[in-house]
């Protein structure tokens, strides 16, 4: 087991700059998740750690060793692929044993390790089968088993759950988490699903256009997104954004747009002060909006008209229009409402986010 360090990593494909100046330290035993939309460079970064892609510039260290020019076979890593990449002509046992055979382990040792891994994953009875005789979930387990028999220094996961159906995905997510707690191997996990990132990661790296946007524990990303992209990417349903103007009146700061007028909470006032008279983006998560009650101060409230009602059972998502724009609010499931009804919504003053309109960096 080892830490993985990425120093000033860049990747160019001819004219495309796919990964830009990535600096990261993945600590020993840490479960690090790379998340971002497709084409953000997360998979390329993972493949550079694996040795499947050459590094254009920078250094990658696994443990204390620079592995830039080391072929994948010598990096002592294991990888689980999105399509599982099970060798179709080999039985499950042989699939799991292949890496050990390549490393010239003794037969008895191979057998014992495969048995143990199969035991952990509950696939003992499948060892004699061929991959095509397995269900999606079983294939997934075999792919995991193939990785863990190796006892590698680092596990790499490339969207391993995205080929499973929704229910199985949740189940495997939990198992992965347990497995990591049990084995404690350093893991790098790539996904485009922010829920997987939030639930699995000890820390999460958010990437976009080849840049690292933010690195942090899941709750840090949720509570204090570094920029508008992270704010919008983390959390479901996505954060509402509105362009507003910062106005100063009678020593108080307000943000205003047509249909929306909210007092800037005290904790944000210092940051927003220099922006007075200019536009900023305000971000409010749907779950931080509620139907205004008597206890809500009027300065946090605004009017909205219901456009769509999405009843989810545990909550209701209201698509509302606020002035010319729209927002989503997650409200109590007991609320009775009709289309085109006019409502008064209140925003949680402690959970409002402000972003510079040009740089999109959090204020």
């Amino acid at each position, binding site marked *: 087991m080892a830490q993985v360090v990425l120093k000033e990593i860049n990747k160019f494909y001819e004219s495309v700059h796919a990964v830009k100046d990535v600096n990261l330290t993945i600590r020993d035993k840490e479960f690090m998740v790379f998340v971002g939309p497709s084409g953000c460079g997360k998979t390329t970064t993972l493949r550079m750690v694996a040795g499947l892609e050459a590094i254009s510039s920078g250094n990658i260290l696994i443990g204390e060793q620079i592995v830039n020019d080391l072929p994948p076979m010598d990096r002592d890593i294991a990888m689980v692929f999105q399509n599982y990449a099970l060798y179709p002509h080999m039985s499950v046992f042989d699939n799991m044993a292949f890496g050990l055979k390549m490393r*010239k382990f003794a037969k008895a040792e191979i057998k014992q390790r495969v048995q143990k891994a199969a035991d952990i994953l509950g696939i003992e009875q499948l060892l004699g089968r061929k991959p095509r005789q397995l269900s999606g979930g079983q294939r997934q387990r075999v792919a995991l088993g193939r990785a863990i028999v190796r*006892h590698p220094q680092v596990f790499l996961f490339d969207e391993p759950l995205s080929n499973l159906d929704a229910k199985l995905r949740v189940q495997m997510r939990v198992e992965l988490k347990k497995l990591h707690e049990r084995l404690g191997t350093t893991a790098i996990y790539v996904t485009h699903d922010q829920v997987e990132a939030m639930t699995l990661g000890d820390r999460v790296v958010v990437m976009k256009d080849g840049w690292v946007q933010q690195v942090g524990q899941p709750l840090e990303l949720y509570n204090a997104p570094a920029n508008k992209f992270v704010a919008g990417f983390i959390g479901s349903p996505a954060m509402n954004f509105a362009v507003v103007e910062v106005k100063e009146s009678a020593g108080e700061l307000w943000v205003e747009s047509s249909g929306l007028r909210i007092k800037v909470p005290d904790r944000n006032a210092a940051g927003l002060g220099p922006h007075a008279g200019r536009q900023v983006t305000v971000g409010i998560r749907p779950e931080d909006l509620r139907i205004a009650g008597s206890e809500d101060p009027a300065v946090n409230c605004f009017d909205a008209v219901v456009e769509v009602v999405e009843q989810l059972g545990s909550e209701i998502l209201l698509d509302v229009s606020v002035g010319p724009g729209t927002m989503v609010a997650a409200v109590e499931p007991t609320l009775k409402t009709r289309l085109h009804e006019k409502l008064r919504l209140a925003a949680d003053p402690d959970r409002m986010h402000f972003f510079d309109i040009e740089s999109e960096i959090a204020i």
Partner: protein
Amino acid sequence: MAIIAAGTVVGAPPRRRLLEDERWLAMMLLLPTAVLLGLFIAYPFMRGIVLAVTDARVGIAGEFVGLGNFERLASDPIFYQVVWNTVLYTAVTTVFKLALGLWLALLLNRSFRGKAYVRAFILLPFIIPTVLSTFAWKWMFDPTFSVLNWTMYQLSIINRPINWLGDGDLAMLSIIIVNIWRGVPFFAISLLAGLQTISPDLNEAAAIDGAKPLQRFWYITWPLLLPVTMVVVLFSVIQTFADFQIVYVMTGGGPANATHLFATYAYQLGVGTGLLSQGAAISLAMFPILFLIVVVQLLYIRRVEIR
């Protein structure tokens, strides 16, 4: 786990390292192919050009004569006959092979009992060595003992024997028939594979839209089949243009050069008479024509595929 880590640090032999580099590995993998194709295609090709500009004969190195061999060809009436024969032979057989092959493919595209067997048997003319099956045809076209003549006589279609291989035009017809017979299976099976990639939903949708069978073929099947058809035709045209075996066995180019093709004429001059350089010149004369056919067809295929 420390043990495992140690296991992986064991150094690999340096040769394996070299082959980890994609470029080295690719070079090693391509080496045997490059050597064989270089020695027995590229080099003979150069050698052929060199031969064609000398007056070499078997056993005599020969002197440089420039384009003398080609000039001689240009004044050789047999050569013009050969060009005409080859073009006629290629054009007629290709048209018939395509039409009959397509028809057979459409028949085979239905589901019926024993389809696998029918398909397997139908390919026999294509896999049985051409020279051997052509002998069966030659025997069937025998001037005295022709079973075809016998059958047609019994059916009162003819009242005197047809001298299939003795008359120039009939001989050409004969080799055309044999070539079609041998080529139809190739067309049929390739086109059948193409037909099977066309979703039956399309035809059913068109039928629901009110298209009659012929319209369905013309508006749905044919356009979707066109790319495969073009490639099949390309291969067939090249093979037919350069054909040797059927003519060599059936007529040897006769009677009176009526069925000589490029390859048989080149063989007759180059090997039969020992005029190596002239034979090489005739073979080489095929090259620009074939090259043109390939380029035109490839361009057309590309256009069809883009559409």
